[in-house]
């Protein structure tokens, strides 16, 4: 695009972001502050993920962007267009064909490979923020691995509801060291993060933090021996492809309680229906 550098950001800014990414990869799960820039998309729309993508994308990359698991949600369309316009890279909706995947709120159903990178958009990188709003305090707690507060919160859930009642943004321990937010993916997706062959990068633009989970890193969802982690999905089969193991969206079809359950991952669903493009 005229007047702008490849992938929008200037090279100095990309270098600054890459340094933060390297540090993040070296300390899995640790939030690294970085000098996030204002982007031409609003905060909350994925500015962190966009900056990370812009810093790692090359001319030969094939980019896939999903929001809520789907390639055709408006924000995914908008971000994919942004990179098609500013970097001129090839884009795809196929999880297999992509080398770089930017996502909001989902991990694709298709298992990712070593030669792929997944970039998560993160609204609030601090997993402790509901328990300790001060980021300065939370930082100390991370430094000391002082995560008792979170264990108590989970215990209170068990005491009150008989089970852990977190359904998304379910906290994980990365590499047995840092309590980390998986971003607001459904708890259903958490197990996919564990020992994933692909590099996982997390960008939070407004909060100005980057963190990472390197390939094959241990990612454990917090739980108790007698209350093990349970992923949640609607107990139905996909109304379009019949899948019984994918994460489902519930679509309201009328005002008399009519429901249709369909795969949230549109590429996965289309592939199973044999209509992949």
């Amino acid at each position, binding site marked *: 695009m005229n007047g*702008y550098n490849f992938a929008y950001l*200037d090279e100095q800014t990309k270098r600054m972001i890459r340094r933060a990414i390297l540090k993040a990869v070296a300390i899995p799960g640790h939030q690294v*502050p*970085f*000098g996030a*820039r*204002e*982007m*031409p998309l*609003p*905060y*909350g*729309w994925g*500015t962190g993920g966009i900056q990370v993508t812009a810093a790692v994308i090359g001319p030969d990359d094939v980019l896939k962007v999903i*929001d*809520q*698991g*789907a390639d*055709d*949600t*408006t*924000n995914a*369309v908008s971000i994919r*267009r942004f990179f098609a316009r500013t970097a001129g890279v090839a884009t795809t909706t196929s999880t297999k064909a992509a080398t770089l995947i930017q996502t*909001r*709120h*989902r991990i694709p159903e298709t298992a990712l490979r070593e030669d792929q990178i997944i970039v998560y958009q993160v*609204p609030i990188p601090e997993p402790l923020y509901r328990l300790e709003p*001060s*980021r*300065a305090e939370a930082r100390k707690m991370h430094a000391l691995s002082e995560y008792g507060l979170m264990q108590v919160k989970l215990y209170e859930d068990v005491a009150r509801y*008989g089970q852990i*009642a977190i*359904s*998304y*943004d379910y906290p994980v321990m990365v590499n047995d060291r840092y309590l980390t937010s998986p971003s*607001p*993916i*459904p*708890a*259903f997706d958490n197990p996919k993060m564990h020992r994933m062959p692909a590099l996982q990068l997390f960008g939070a633009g*407004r909060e*100005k*933090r980057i963190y990472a989970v390197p390939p094959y890193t241990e990612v454990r969802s917090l739980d108790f021996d007698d209350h093990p982690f349970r992923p*949640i*999905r*609607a*107990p139905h089969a996909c109304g*379009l492809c019949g899948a019984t193991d994918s*994460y*489902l*969206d*519930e*679509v*309201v*079809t009328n005002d008399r309680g009519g429901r*249709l359950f*369909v795969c*949230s991952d*549109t590429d996965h669903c289309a592939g199973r229906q044999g209509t992949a493009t």
Partner: protein
Amino acid sequence: MAYVAVKGGERAIDNAHAWLAEARRGEPATVELGLDQIAGQLGRAVDRVMAEGSLYDPELAALAIKQAQGDLIEAAFLLRAFRTTLPRFAATEPIDTASMRIRRRISAIYKDLPGGQVLGPTTDYTHRLLDFGLAAPGEKPPPAPQAEATTETMPRMADILGHEGLIEREQSEAGGPPSDLTREPLSFPAARDIRLQTLARGDEGFLLALGYATQRGYGNTHPFAGEIRMGEVTLEIVPPELGFAIEIGEITVTECQMVNQFAGSKTVPAQFTRGYGLAFGFSERKAMAMALVDRAMRAEELGEEAGAPAQDVEFVLSHCDNVEATGFVEHLKLPHYVDFQSELENLRRLRAETASTLQAEAAE
């Protein structure tokens, strides 16, 4: 099918943008707004957008206001997103507000002072009656009376009080150039240079509310408006290859020095302290609110009891940026159905278990 309808798509976005462009232009039969009209006649809006967009450029701010249909936070965002693409060539020398070419200068703590009180183009003593004469075009106000420019210097109030040692000395942070909020992330504890930078581009409404809260007892700082001045200051940079300062232009700023009571401590005699506010353009409300909040945030440093929102540095600085705030608040309208679905299933599961427990109890 309903499923397709909820998933947006490229055409929907294109159509929305086309509609937006049409709505922005308004009724085609009316005269289109010119940037010179916005910059010339809506100057206070331009000033606010420059301050919160943290870029001094009246023309671009006017463009942003036009593009944003007068939504000033959106305009500030447009300006920020442009600003961030600009290379940083140099940092200016500190501006010298003592040598400001004054358009307005008032002090609420002295009846008269060297240089005098200068009201300037203020609305302070207007009666807020709608001027229906303005509704019809053709307004030609008579020229305002003029006087010879005074050669008298206008020392800053703080310098006047400072001679007696009645007010604290300006503390310069320990050496080195000031940090740059636009390049480095905000972190805590935040030094005063970063605090002032953050406040300077913080949301006027947010700072106004916090400053007001301190006056009503939530972190009272016993303020007096020591001095407010507005006018033009010269910007200088020192290019490394020259080694001396050269002027690169001038900007309009509003500066507010609040004078605040301070009881003193065992080691420091009682003296006045101060809060400082500075904003681009003629932005008096912003500068005053900023000065109140700046002083409130010094509670801990001065050993005062702290607990009010305005005294909580992390709270204030983390939430005063309206570009960040509007982004995160408004992102709630983006799709969240994956997480909502997870919550639905979670809730159904919890309710089912409660129901079966109740049933079991009833059976006993």
